[in-house]
C-alpha cells in the first residue's frame, strides 16, 4: 500500500527527528539549570554554534536541538517527494516539487 508506506516513512522520520532534537534540548536545559543564570542570548552564526557545542555550552546545545526540530517538517516534504518518485505518482511528485520550490522562495525572499 502506497499510503501506508508514506505514513510509515513519515512516522519513522519524525520519531528520529524528535529524538535527535529533544535530547540536546533537554540535556541543554539540565546543564543550564545546573550552571545557573548565564549567557542566554541566541546563537545564530554557525561557527559560534559549533564552537559552543564543542565547549558544551548549554545555549548552543539547546539551539542545536531547536534547529534539528525546525528541519523536521521540511524533511517530511522531501521524504514525501522521494516516496512519490518511488511510486511514480506524477501528480504528487509535481505537488511536492512545487511546494519545495515555494518554501525555498519564501525563505530566500524573507532572508534577503
Amino acid at each position: 500500500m502506497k499510503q501506508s508506506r508514506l505514513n510509515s516513512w513519515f512516522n519513522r522520520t519524525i520519531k528520529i527527528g524528535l529524538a535527535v532534537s529533544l535530547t540536546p534540548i533537554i540535556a541543554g536545559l539540565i546543564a543550564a539549570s545546573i550552571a545557573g543564570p548565564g549567557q542566554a542570548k541566541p546563537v545564530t552564526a554557525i561557527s559560534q554554534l559549533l564552537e559552543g557545542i564543542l565547549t558544551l555550552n548549554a545555549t548552543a546545545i539547546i539551539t542545536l536541538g531547536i534547529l534539528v526540530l525546525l528541519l523536521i517538517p521540511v524533511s517530511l516534504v522531501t521524504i514525501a517527494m522521494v516516496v512519490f518518485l518511488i511510486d511514480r505518482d506524477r501528480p504528487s511528485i509535481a505537488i511536492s516539487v512545487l511546494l519545495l520550490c515555494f518554501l525555498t522562495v519564501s525563505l530566500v525572499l524573507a532572508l534577503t
Partner: protein
Amino acid sequence: MLGVGGGFIIVPMLSLALHIPIQIAIAASLTSIVATSSTATIAYTKARMTNIKLGLLLETLTAPGAITGAVLASFLPSSILSLLFGMIMIYMAYRMTRRQPPTTSTPHTASPELHSTKPTGVMTLLEGSYHDQNLDQPVTYSIRRIPLGLAGSFVAGILSSMLGIGGGIVKVPVMNTVMGVPIKAAIATSTFCIGITAAIGALIYYYNGFIYPSIAGPLVAGVFVGAILGTRLMQRLRGLLLQRLFAVLIFTTAILMFLKAAAIL
C-alpha cells in the same frame, strides 16, 4: 487537539503575562508549534488520519498567500482585514455547529448537496480513510471543491502573515465545511500543515536572532507532553463535540478580531 498549534495562547501568555518582547514571543511560539505538529503527526499518521497529499497540496498555496499577505500589509489596514476575517469566521462557526459529523459513513461526504458528484482525477488521489476510535468503524471520504479549498488555503497564508494567526484556524473549517473532510482528518491534516508553515517562519526568526533558547527550549519540552495528551484525547472524542469545540474557538477568535479592528485590543 484542534489542529491550530496553540500559538494564540502562547504568544499572549509570553508577551502579556511574562512581558517578553512580541518578536521573541512569536519566535518561541512558532518553534513550539513545530514541536506540537511533529509530535501529533506521529500519532495521526499511525492512525492514518493525516491526509498527507491533501496537506501538501494545500500548502502549495499557503506559502504564496503568506508572501501576498506580507505585500498587502504595507497598504491594506489590518483593521479592515480583521473585520473581514471576523465576519468569515462567524459564518464558519455557524456552519460548523449546524453540520453533522459522519456516524456510519463509507464513503463519507460532508453535506447532502455534495452527494451528487462522484470524485474523479486528482480527487480520487486525495481520497482518505481512517479508523475512528470513538465510532469503532472505518471512515472513508472523498475530497470535493478543490479550487475553493485551495483558495481558502491561500487566504490562510495571507491572514497568517498579516494578522499573525496560525493558518489552522482557517484550514480546519475550510477542509471540513467546504471540502468535505471529516473533522478528525481535517484536524490531523491541518496539524501536519501548520508544522511546515511554522518551521519556515521560525527559521526566519532564528536567522534574525529572535529565538532565545532559554525561552523556546522549555516551551518545546512542555508542548511535547501536551501534544501527546491532546492527540490521544482528540482520537477518543466524538466528531460532533470536536466540531462544536472548534466552532467556539473560531467564534472567540472572530470576537478578538472585531475588538482588534475597533482598536480596543
